């Protein structure tokens, strides 16, 4: 059960912690995590601005994170596109508005669903993976070894991952937008008998603008930053050997998923 507790002060509770202490401890550890992520972000940006990061490592990470995530992005996007049509179907049938299907599914996909679900899937696959990898390096003292060799771990390990993750999420979201619309168009044909042509007409009839696409893409960048920072932060903060890695992986997927939803609201709110 220890594997499920967040790596906070509460994980080794003194015999009689009251509710207040527990809540306070939770807030303190949350604040420490967010502050650590901010600091890490600052350090990464400094390396990026002065171009002191490893290009080779960036390309390798882009391949491992980006190219290898393509299958899950394809499956998720096609399925969600079809699900969107099923959920929009009652409204379309009730109002008899086949021409609005493209609009309904399109705005849902472009603004919310494609960026959100792509981020959640990539968080599960790449973010967790990243934490496990960095955590193992911390536990086996490989990071200390890098420091001994006078190699800056942030420039060599963290900044390339940050760049690769943000790029991956941005490109995957574009990819997922396209595929989800395709899934929705053919889902509409199979389920409601709406011709894909009508669907695309509804999509381009002027109700949807470029702002819908860019709003989704801005979100994808924000989500990429959140996933990258939290997975690196939790990975570098691993304590307690092998079980600590499992705990950190668990904590990072939960923290990034919550962060994604919270920031989604604020980005949507700001952009409109």
């Amino acid at each position: 059960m220890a594997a499920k507790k967040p790596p906070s002060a509460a994980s080794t509770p003194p015999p009689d912690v009251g509710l207040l202490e527990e809540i306070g401890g939770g807030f303190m550890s949350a604040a420490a995590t967010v502050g650590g992520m901010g600091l890490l972000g600052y350090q990464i940006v400094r390396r990026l601005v002065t171009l002191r990061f490893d290009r080779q490592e960036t390309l390798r990470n882009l391949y491992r994170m980006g190219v290898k995530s393509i299958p899950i992005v394809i499956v998720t996007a096609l399925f969600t596109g079809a699900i969107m049509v099923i959920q929009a179907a009652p409204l379309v049938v009730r109002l008899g508005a086949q021409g609005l299907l493209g609009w309904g599914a399109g705005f849902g996909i472009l603004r919310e669903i494609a960026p959100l679900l792509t981020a959640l899937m990539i968080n599960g696959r790449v973010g967790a993976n990243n934490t496990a990898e960095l955590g193992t390096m911390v536990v086996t003292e490989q990071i200390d070894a890098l420091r001994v060799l006078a190699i800056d771990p942030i420039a060599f390990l963290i900044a390339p991952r940050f760049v690769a993750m943000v790029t991956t999420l941005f490109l995957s979201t574009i990819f997922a937008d396209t595929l989800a619309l395709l899934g929705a168009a053919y889902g509409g044909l199979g389920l409601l008998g709406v011709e894909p042509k009508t669907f695309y007409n509804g999509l381009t009839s002027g109700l949807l603008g470029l702002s819908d696409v860019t709003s989704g893409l801005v979100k994808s960048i924000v989500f990429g930053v959140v996933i990258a920072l939290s997975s690196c932060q939790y990975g570098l903060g691993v304590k307690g050997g092998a079980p600590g890695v499992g705990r950190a992986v668990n904590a990072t997927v939960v923290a990034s998923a919550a962060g994604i939803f919270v920031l989604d609201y604020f980005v949507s709110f700001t952009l409109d």
Partner: protein
Amino acid sequence: MAAAKTHDEGAPESGLDTAREAPDASIPAVIGAKAIELVVMGLEIAAVFIRTLYYCVRGRPDLGAVVRQMFEIGNRSVVFLTVVMGFIGMILVLQGGLQVKRILPEFSMVGASYLELLIRDLAATISALMLATRVGAGIAAEIGSMVVTEQVDALRMCAADPIDYLIKPRFLASLVMTLVLVIWAAGVAMLTGMLTAYVMFDVNPRTFFNLNLVDTGDLIVGLAKCLAYGAAVPVVAGHSGLHTHGGSEGVGWATTRAVVNASLAVIVLDLILSALGYVFFGP
């Protein structure tokens, strides 16, 4: 199972993986190997599921373990789910309202459609995706570290089936707690959605809470989804955990695999159940 990618990063030591990385593996060969892997994994998960069901009927009764897992799965997810669904409620009503404003002059239908969508699909699916992340990762990490430290082998030595001892309690606990958590999450999302509609678009809460569009079909589909997801997440995650190999690093891979596979299982089940609901209950 549409989990096409499971092994691409998982177990570097599996035989198929080395075949994939051989320099002259042609694309059909890679796709074929993946397809075979996928079928094998689907069968393995089905086997775990059937054995879990068998042990639910014939296994040793262990109410204590189930209750402990209910606490682990349920109580520890409440805060996380409340935050996520609270924000989802606000986002959906905000985005939906802004779009409706473009084509309709009034908002009386926003609440009704939102509630219908929430009950039929979003409450269950988004909560289940979150549970797949949180609960799935936890189950896989826990069972995986037991496998790595040979505790599962020790169980087998004692003639105890790890599925009976480890997966069955999680399965039963997840079935119950998913249902409870989804109902709670739906309530939270309705509340925050109502508040958003009131603050942003001046929709009266009474107008918003319009359950006219919700019918029995919606309710049945929503509850069926809760049960399906509640059953799928522990089985898929438990399968990943039991197939951990490669020491402590393997636990990390198993966790990743569990989260991805469980999320994909949720999405695939969502499509299947939504389509069935559409066929049986109509639009």
